[in-house]
C-alpha cells in the first residue's frame, strides 16, 4: 500500500529526515516510536503534504501513485488520513458542514453521487456511537472549545466517517486520560480491517497496549534505526531510548 524509499526532507534547510525506508501493507499496523525531535511528526507532515517540510530526495508510492506529486486534498481523497497531534479549532465552521463537505468531496473523487442531507445525518449518527462522541460536540464549530480529549475523539470520529485506507495517528495519546485513551484506541481498533492500514506515531508504549502493532520501528535522528515486533516496544519502555542510541552508535563505529 505504502512504499517509502530513501526519503529525505528538510525544514528551513535543516535535514530532518535522512533516508527513511518503510513498507506498509494492507491489514498491518505499524508503530513508529522515537525520542523528541527524531522526525516523527515531520514524516507525518511529508506524507500528508504539509508545505513547510521540503522533500529533497526519495520516493513515496501510495496504492501505486507517486504520493509526493499529489496535493493534500487528493491524498486525503485517495485514502490518507492524519489524526493531528494538535487538532485546529475553526470557529464559525460547523462540524456538520465540515464533514459533509469532506465526505462528499471523497465521494466525488471516487465517482459517487453526493449524500443527501438526511443520508449524511444518518451516517453521522452511526459513526458517532463508534467513538462515543457527544452529540453536542458535532453540533458545534470544528473543535471550538473542545477539551484535549474531545479533540482527539473528534479526530477518530472524522476518521470513521472518511474510512481511510491509511490512517496516520500522530501522538494521538498525548493529552489523553486513561478513559479517553481507551475510547480512542477502541475506535481505531474497530475501524481496522484487512483492507486498511495504520501508522501509529507515539512516544510511549502505553497506546500500543490498546492498538497492537504488527511492527515497531524506532526513528532516531531522521532514520529508522531498528525495527521489530511489539516486543521491541516493551523493551524500549523498559530500557529507554539510550539503549538503542548506544547500540546504533557502536554499530556505526564498527
Amino acid at each position: 500500500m505504502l512504499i517509502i524509499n530513501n526519503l529525505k526532507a528538510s525544514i528551513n534547510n535543516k535535514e530532518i529526515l535522512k533516508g527513511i525506508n518503510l513498507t506498509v501493507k494492507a491489514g498491518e499496523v505499524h508503530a513508529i516510536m522515537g525520542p523528541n525531535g527524531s522526525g516523527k511528526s515531520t514524516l507525518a507532515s511529508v506524507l500528508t503534504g504539509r508545505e513547510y517540510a521540503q522533500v529533497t530526495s526519495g520516493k513515496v508510492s501510495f496504492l501505486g501513485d507517486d504520493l509526493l506529486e499529489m496535493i493534500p486534498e487528493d491524498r486525503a481523497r485517495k485514502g490518507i488520513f492524519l489524526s493531528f497531534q494538535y487538532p485546529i479549532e475553526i470557529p464559525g465552521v460547523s462540524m456538520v458542514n465540515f464533514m459533509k463537505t469532506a465526505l462528499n468531496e471523497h465521494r466525488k473523487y471516487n465517482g459517487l453521487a453526493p449524500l443527501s442531507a438526511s443520508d449524511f445525518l444518518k451516517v453521522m449518527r452511526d459513526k458517532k456511537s463508534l467513538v462515543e462522541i457527544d452529540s453536542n460536540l458535532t453540533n458545534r464549530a470544528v473543535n471550538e472549545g473542545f477539551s484535549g480529549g474531545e479533540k482527539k475523539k473528534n479526530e477518530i470520529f472524522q476518521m470513521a466517517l472518511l474510512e481511510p485506507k491509511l490512517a496516520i495517528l500522530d501522538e494521538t495519546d498525548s493529552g489523553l486520560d486513561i478513559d479517553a485513551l481507551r475510547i480512542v484506541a477502541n475506535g481505531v481498533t474497530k475501524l481496522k480491517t484487512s483492507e486498511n492500514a495504520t501508522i501509529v506515531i507515539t512516544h510511549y508504549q502505553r497506546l500500543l497496549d490498546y492498538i497492537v502493532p504488527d511492527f515497531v520501528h524506532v526513528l532516531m535522528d531522521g532514520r529508522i534505526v531498528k525495527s521489530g515486533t511489539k516486543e521491541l516496544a516493551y523493551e524500549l519502555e523498559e530500557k529507554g531510548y539510550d539503549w538503542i542510541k548506544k547500540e546504533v552508535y557502536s554499530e556505526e563505529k564498527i
Partner: protein
Amino acid sequence: MCDTTNIYTTLYNNNKDIFAASDPEFITKLRSDAMKFISENGFPAKKDEQYKYSFLEPHFGNGYKRYLAPKAIEFDVSHLFRCDVPALDTHVIILVNGFYFDKVNTLRTHENGIVIGSLNEAIKKYPALIEKYLAKSYSNTDSYVAINTAFASDGVFLYVPKNQQLEKPIQIINVLLSDEELMVQHRNLFILEPNSSAKVVVCDHTLSPVKFLTNSVNEIFAGENAHFDYFKVQNEHNDSVHVSHSFINQDTASNCRSTTITLHGGVVRNNLSVKFNGEGCENHAFGLFVSDQNQHVDNNLFIDHAKPNCTSNQQFKAILDDASTGAFTGRILVERDAQKTAAYQRNSSILLTDEARMNSKPQLEIYADDVKCSHGATVGQLDEEALFYLRSRGISEREARLMLMYAFAFEILNEIKIEPLKDRMSELIEKRLRGELSRCNNCAMHCS
C-alpha cells in the same frame, strides 16, 4: 473658495428662491446655515484627519446631474423589482433617486398613530414636530452633511408615538435609476417616542450602469426606553460613490442596534455617530464588507458616552480581495461624568492579496475613571493551519478558503436578528465570496 464649494454655492443661489417658495421658514434657515458652513469651511482636504482614507471632494465636484425635484421616471415596480427577501414581511417604501416613489400614499397614519411616509409631505403636515427634530442630532461640522441639509428635499419619515410598537419592519429600497450620471441626496428622519420600538431595513441598489453619487443623512431619535434596530445593505455597482451619515440620539435606557453590510460598491463611506443623552443606554453597531477589484469601503464611527452607565459595542469585519482598500475608524469618547461606562470595539480584516490594503484606527478618549473599555484591531490572512486541516480531510483549497472566509463573516451575520434577512444575507455573502453575482434575485440590474 475652491471649485467644488463654488459649484454648490452657485447651485444654491440659483435655486434658493424656488426652495423658499415651498419650504417653511425653519427649513429655509437650516439650508442657509448649512450653506454658510460650506462657504466658510469648504470640503475636507486630502490630509483632513476625518477623511484621510477617503478623499471625496473630487466626486462631489465632478459635475453629476442633480435634481432638486423628482424627475419623471418610467419605473414599473412590480416588473423591475420585487423584494429581495421573499420571506420578509415589511412595509415597503421605495425611493427612486432619493425621492418618495409612491405618489398616492405619500404619508400614512396607522391606527396606533404611527406615521410612515415622505419627509417632504411630513414637513408640510407636521411642521412643528419636524422642526423639533430635523438637523438637531448634530452641529454643523461636516460639509457633506451640510450639503445634504442644504439640498435634500425628500426621504423617509417615521414617527412612532409613545408606547407603540411597529410590528412589521419598514423596508426602504433606495433605487438609483438614470440614463445620465446622477447625484442623489435623500434624508431620513426616524422619531421614536418613549417605550416605542421599530425596525428599519434599508437596501441600496443601482439599476442603471451610469455613475451615481449618493450623499444621504439619517437621523434617529430614540426616546426613553425605546428600541430601534437599523439594518443597511449596500449593493451598488463599481462606478457608484456612496456617502452616508447616520446620527443616533439615545435617551435614557434606550437600546439601538445598527448593522451595515456592504456587498458591492465603488467608493463607500459610512459615518455612524451615536450620542447617549441619558443613562443606561445600549448601542450595538455591527459592520461587514466584502470588497474586490478597486473598491473602497470606509466605516467611520463616533460613539459619544456623554452620560454614565451606558454600554456600547462595535464589531466590524472586512474581507478584501484584489486591489481593494478599506478603512475603519472607531472613536469612543467617554466624557468626564460618564462613570460606569462599558465600551467595546473590535475590527478584524482579512486581506486575500498583497495589493489589498486596510487601515484600522481605534481611538479611545477616556475622561472618566471608572470605566471598562476594550478595543482590538487585527489585519491578517486566512489561517494557514486551519486551511491545511480542512484540506487534509479532502476539501479543495478553494472550498476550504471559502469556508474560512464565510466562517469569519458569520460572526457578524449571526447578529442579524430578523431571521429571513439573516438567511438571505448569509446566502448573498456566500455567493459574493464565491465570486458569483450577488445580485438580488428579482432585480433587473446584474451588478458585477
